[in-house]
Structure formats: C-alpha cells, structure tokens
C-alpha cells in the first residue's frame, strides 16, 4: 500500500465533490441546503428552483460526466493506437462528420423547406450521429485497405479537412438565422438535453465503453507498436476496428448530442499518465474516465459564470482550460517519451 493506491479513492471523492459543486453553481443562486432538501424530500421552496435543478442542472451534470468519460477514453485509445501524443477523439474526422450532419440539417435544411423551429435536439443528434457514421464508414473503408496506422491517421485528418470544407461551403450559402444556429451548435453545449436524451447518451457511452475495458491487455501490448503487439498474439487489425467503433460511438454520440468539445480528449489522458505515473491501461482507463468527468464538471461550472445571466460556451471553456494544460505538459517534459 503506497500513496498511489489512494489515488482512486481521492479521485472518486473529487468526482462527487465536483458533481455537487456543478449542481450548486449557476446563474440563479440556490442555497445548497435547498438543493439537498429538494432532491431528498421533493419539496421545493420555489417551483423555478425545482425546474432548474431537476430539468436543467441535474441532466447537465450527468451529461458532463458522460461526455468527460467518453471523450477522455476515446482520446486515450487514439493516442495509444496511433502512438501519437497529440491524437484526440476527433482525429479520424468524427467531429467533422457530426458537424457535417448537423450543418446539412441546419444550413441546407432551410433550403429544403425544413423550418428552423422544427430543428430540435433530437433532430440534431440524429443528424450528428448519421454524419459521424458516414465519415467513419469512409475512414473504415480506408482502414480496410491500408495496413499502416500512420496512413490511417493522415487519411482521417484529410477526411476531416474535406468535410470541414463542405461545411464552409454550406455556411457560405446559408441564411443568417441558420448560420447562427450552426455556430451555436459548434460552440458545444452540455445543457441542451432533456432526460430522454440523457438516457440515450448514457446508453451510447455504455456501449462504447464495453470494448475499451475488454481490450486493456491489447492496448498495453500496443504501447510497443503494432509489430510487437502482433508478435505477442494481439490481432491488431481487429483492434483497429474495436478502436474505430468505440471512439466512433463515444465521440460521435457526444458530438452529436453536445456539439464539439475540444481538448478534453487530448489533455485528460496526459494528465492521467502524469498523476498515475504509469502507462498501464488497467489504471489509465479508469483514471482518465474519472479525471475527464471531473474536469468537464468543473469547466461547466466555470462556464455557467455563477451570478451572471450569461453563459460561456463549453467548447470555449474547455479550450481555454485545456490549451494551457497541454502547453505546460509539453514544457514540463517530453510528451513522446512520457507516453
């Protein structure tokens, strides 16, 4: 028993703490005691408080946890698989794909006679998932043909660029209203989901996590590269599909429901490696999941600008928080050696 064995209980405690903090902070100040009392007794001092906690903050906090876990674990998988410290959940064009689906719905939809009011979060999520699936199947088709991971990585990035170009063309030709709607989506949002959607997102994350935890051993072997992994009996081709499907479900689902959320996927695995000082995925997977959830809960709490009537978009907050983290990591030590 050493200090490191306490890391998981500490992280678990911090997760509970940041969950409660997230619940208690917002534009409207609600006393913490009232929140606890309301949650346990169902009696609220003001109906607006009941609405705010039960139908806004609670689902938002749960979405932050789901998204934090999903994005961090997609990032970790990508970084290990491509042995690239800057790989993130979106390198295979997943977020651009989801963006494509959403932009077609919003930007081209108006041209096809779908009114903007008809675009609710269900439609957005469906379009996002379809878009992510479309780009992912394009990338998979390449993965089928290509042996080399580096080529797959580059092809994924190219797919992303091409899709972004299509989105730009769509934006260029779309009306101000639709463009605004799309811009809002691309800023990311954790609080746009109703309970039904939270449930679906939760199921998607659950499905995406199963292959991750079944492949801990293979990911460890992959740390030595695909050739070594194969020599130790790891079917790297199969792993590639597991990685594509898992990150596609996780990152694709999250992006579809919440919009793109930057930096969590890249930064969290590095922080986990630094804290646990290990490259063992049996520790890194749960560690990254916990840290991702904590970080996103805190980012969201900050973004709510407690006491103000406005909110910062979550994608901006994670970028503002994430970029300095990644930069300081790079400055403190050599990332590639620290893998």
């Amino acid at each position, binding site marked *: 028993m050493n200090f490191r064995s306490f890391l998981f209980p500490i992280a678990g405690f911090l997760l509970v703490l940041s969950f409660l903090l997230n619940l208690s902070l917002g534009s409207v100040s609600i006393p913490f005691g009232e929140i606890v009392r309301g949650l346990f007794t169902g009696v609220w001092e003001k109906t*607006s408080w009941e609405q705010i906690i039960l139908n*806004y903050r609670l689902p938002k906090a749960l979405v932050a946890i789901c998204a934090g876990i999903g994005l961090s674990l997609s990032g970790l998988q990508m970084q290990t698989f491509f042995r690239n410290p800057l790989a993130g959940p979106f390198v295979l064009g997943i977020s651009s794909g989801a963006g494509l689906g959403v932009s077609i719905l919003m930007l081209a939809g108006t041209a096809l006679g779908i*009114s*903007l009011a008809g675009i609710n979060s269900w439609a957005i999520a469906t379009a996002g998932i379809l878009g992510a699936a479309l780009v992912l199947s394009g990338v998979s088709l390449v993965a089928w043909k290509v042996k080399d991971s580096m080529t797959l990585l580059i092809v994924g990035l190219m797919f992303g660029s091409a899709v972004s170009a299509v989105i730009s063309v769509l934006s260029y030709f779309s009306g101000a209203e639709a463009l605004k709607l799309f811009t809002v*989506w691309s800023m990311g*949002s954790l609080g746009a989901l109703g309970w039904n959607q939270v449930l679906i997102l939760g199921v998607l994350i659950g499905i995406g996590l199963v292959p991750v935890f079944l492949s801990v051993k293979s990911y460890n072997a992959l740390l030595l590269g695909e050739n070594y992994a194969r020599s130790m009996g790891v079917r790297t081709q199969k792993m590639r599909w597991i990685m594509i499907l898992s990150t596609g479900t996780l990152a694709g689902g999250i992006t579809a429901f919440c919009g793109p959320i930057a930096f969590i996927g890249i930064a969290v695995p590095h922080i986990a490696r630094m804290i646990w000082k290990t490259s063992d995925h049996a520790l890194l997977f749960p560690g990254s999941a916990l840290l991702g959830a904590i970080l996103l809960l805190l980012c969201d709490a900050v973004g709510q600008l407690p006491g103000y009537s406005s909110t910062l978009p979550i994608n901006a907050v994670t970028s503002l928080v994430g970029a300095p983290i990644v930069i300081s990591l790079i400055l403190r030590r050599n990332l590639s050696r620290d893998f």
Partner: protein
Amino acid sequence: MNLSLVLMLFSCQKKESSALEKTQIPLSYAQGFEIFKGDNFFEIHVTQGYTGAEKEYRYLVMEKEAALPTEGFDAVVQLPISSVALTSTTQIPHLDILGETTRLGAFPNLDLISSHSTRDWIAQGKVMDLGRGPSANPELVIELEPSWIMISTLGEDLRYLDLLSQAGIPAVINGEYVEQHPLGRAEWIKFTGILLGKYEQAVEEFERIELAYLEAEKLISQAQNLARPQVLSGVMYQDIWYAPGAESWGARILENAGGDYIFSSQGGTGSLQLNYEFVLDQALEADFWIGSADFPDLKSMGESEPRYRAFSAWKAGKVFTYTAKTGESGGLEYFELGYLRPDLILKDLIKILHPELLPEYELYFYQKLN
C-alpha cells in the same frame, strides 16, 4: 511631398462637395442619415451605415437634366431612374408603398420576398435573381446596370462597394436596422423616396405611419390604471436563450404597447444571450410570451423543446408569434414589412396585451399559437 499632395487632394474634395448651395431638412426620428435640399438636387449623408460606422457616406441625387460637380460623393444618382437593385426584403415595401414596384430589377434570392405586388412582378420574369450567397453576385449587378443598388450592411455586400463604384453603379448604403426608435426605421422611406425622385410622396406616407403609431401609443399613455402584464420573449437554442435587448427596437415597441418586458434590466440594443436557468427564474410566471420563432402550434413547440412547457405563458396558451402572414414562397411578412409599419406591430401588441383598448382591430402580423 507625396503626403502633402494627397492631403491637398483630400481637402479639395471635401470643399467641393459642400460647396453646393443647400439647406438641411430635419428628420423626426432617424439618426443614421441626413438630407439636404438644393436647387435641383438632394444630398444625403449616411452617418450610421452600420453599427459603429465611422465613415460618412455622401450621395448626390440630381434631378432631371441637372449638371453638377460630382467630385467628393460616394455615389451620384441621376434622375429619372430606370430600374434598381435591392438587397434586403425590408427595402421591398418602400417600392410598393411609393407605387414603384416595377422599378425592381434585381434581388438576391427571390424566394425571400413576400409582397404580393412584387411577387406578381417576379412572376412576369422581370426580376433577376442575384444568387443565394451572403452577398449579391457583383457580376450580375454590373451586367444589369441598375440606376442604383441599395445595400444592406447586414449581409456581406459592403465588400463590393469599391468594385461597384468603379463599374459606375451607384451603390447606396441603407442602415435602417441601426435605428433604435421604431419610427426611425420607418423614416428611411424618405431615403428611398429621394432616390426614386418621389420625396414628397415618401414624406406623406411616413407622416401617415407616424400618426397611426402615435395615436396607438396615446391609447396606452393616457389609459388610467393600466396593468402592465409581464412579457417573455425569445427562443432557446441548445441551452442558451436568445431575446431582444432592452434597448432594442422590438423591446421599445413592447414597452410602448403597455407590456412589462421581463428582460428590461438586461441592456443592449442587439440580441441577448441568456442562461436557461436565469430565464426560468425570471420568467416562469410571465403572463405572455411574444415572439417565439416560427412554431406552428403549442404542441410542436413543447415537443421540440420540452423545457418550454415549464413556463406559465405556455401552459396558459398565451404564446404569440409573428407568423400570421407568410409569403407564397415562405418568407415572413413581419420581417419584410415590419420595419416600415411599426404602427401595425404596436397595434398588434396592444391588441394582445390590452384587447379592450382596440376592440375592433384585427391582428396583422401576430397570431396566437393554439
């Protein structure tokens, strides 16, 4: 050397443009432009072409057969005009009200136009479509050679200003949306009137609208013991609520109509971005919800965003939106005619909030969602 030469040229230009004998005609509400009348010409100075504009644009409108020095003007229009190009639907009613619908020669994305008379004109194939991009296609404009093109700076048309002036096409900037007073926007009809050579008629039309507006306003200001119902406005995208700022045009009309705008403490002339829980806290019990995007009915509104259902106004079915009149190709008449007819908007809102004050009136732009 070079610098002083440039400065000299610059100062010469300034002098000549103001050298013409002219008198300013004061405007009642509009802040964004000034008009001057001369012997056989009008001069228009657009001081607020867009939000935060620093450059003043000067236009010279010469009557028939007038020959004046044209240096120093950003655009020179020679009357009479043949055809014109417009870039915003809010400019369309100007032609209609002045009886000059058939002057319209080009417009970007014709489907956006709702006006019946203009649609008839379009149906005759007389209007060129300038494309669906964020700016009117400049090649098509140059090809058409309109007498002038009116540019709205809401789009991206400003960047083609130099190109058009080099091509000899007078491009004038219409900054009506910068005006904060409801009648200020309507007063831009005078701007269009001068450009069409119909200034007097434009003044008449404006005074009619002004009178109607002021009379309606009086109903509220003179009413005894008027209860001001709380009004919520706007819609939510993701979890951000978008609503007009307290000093905006829309919020002003709402206050004039005897409503208590729920976000009146949130300043700003543009659009507000508010946190959902803030809105919920403030507006849960609001009596009315006016201006909620283009939902066809309450049910689809609640389905689209279940959190709308928490508001009393939604529960009580007191949700009104500006979708009563749509053009045959899908445009909303509110967005086209609304700037020119604040009197209709004001009466609509009075009818909604205080129906007893306008018993005979029928809603024009607004309708109740069922």
